[in-house]
């Protein structure tokens, strides 16, 4: 009897764990932001159309049944088509919506890295020029410069 009770408790635990795993923590309200109203073409959470309310009710039922987010999405796509998903499909022309922003971001990042590298190179060249020791003036120039300096100091006295 004890063994049977233990097995039953274990089975119940596994069932609860299985449901929790299938559910994967999604919420109907959160998912409304990832779906589109099929009739008004706005995000589901912003729509009060009858079709949107029907999907909302379906989300609540799916949550109560413990369905995973992926399963809910599959069922919605089977009923309403890909257009029910707010994110563009990952096939055909839908790829363009994913790839073009990614390409622009990658290009922007590359440009930023290149500009930063150029700026740093320019800065270190300037700094090296300032730190370099000054070459001594030629002897003839030194005499001339000393005479010029003496003359200007006399003018101030």
């Amino acid at each position, binding site marked *: 009897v004890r063994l049977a009770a233990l097995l039953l408790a274990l089975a119940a635990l596994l069932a609860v764990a299985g449901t929790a795993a299938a559910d994967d923590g999604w919420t109907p309200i959160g998912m409304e932001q990832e779906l589109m109203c099929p009739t008004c073409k706005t995000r589901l959470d912003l729509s009060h159309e*009858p*079709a949107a*309310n*029907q999907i909302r009710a379906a989300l609540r039922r799916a949550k109560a049944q413990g369905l995973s987010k992926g399963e809910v999405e599959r069922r919605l796509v089977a009923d309403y088509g*890909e*257009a029910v998903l707010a994110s563009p499909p990952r096939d055909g022309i839908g790829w363009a919506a994913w790839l073009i922003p990614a390409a622009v971001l990658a*290009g922007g990042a*590359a440009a930023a890295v290149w500009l930063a590298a150029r700026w740093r190179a320019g800065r270190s060249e300037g700094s090296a020029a300032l730190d370099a020791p000054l070459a001594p003036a030629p002897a003839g120039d030194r005499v001339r410069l000393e005479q010029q300096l003496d003359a200007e100091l006399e003018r101030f006295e």
Partner: protein
Amino acid sequence: MPSMKRLLQAGAVAVLAVLIGLLGWQLWRGNPGADFVEAVGKGERPAAPSFALPRLRGEGDVALASLNGRPSVLNFWASWCDPCAEEAPELNRLAGEWGRRGVRFVGIDAQDARPEARAFATRHGVTYPLVHDTGGTMKSYGVTGFPETFVLDSSGRAIAHFKGPLTDEESLARFEAAVREAGARQ
């Protein structure tokens, strides 16, 4: 080797070219559904866009090709649509009356959950074939709301289009004239 500046310029031009290409493709593709509805409205009798859709109840598909040879009525509807519920008894009556005269009725459920659609069909005692569309057929017929109904002749050409429920006398008179014109037996 090309400089980084040149590469960036080439990248920007490529992105711009892709965007212009997408815009051009979209413009070139146009809106075949709207063109179809417009042609029906002008009385041009355009060929109805083909489809093969799964039955809402039972197994298998219903294809437009299987309807050719007889006049047919395609009714686009959804279970959440109140005017569709209002229209359902009238549509059942028309399907019974014109079905005996060789007209085939097909209900195309779209933008709808299938369990709710089946419940709607049971609740309203719909007996003609019902299919489920995930959007493609609705789009190709230029359907923008529910219910909408098309009358096709025996060669699959659309001769009439109705927006809204077939419940008022004027719509019903137009519908009856259209199914007669489509080749329904007298």
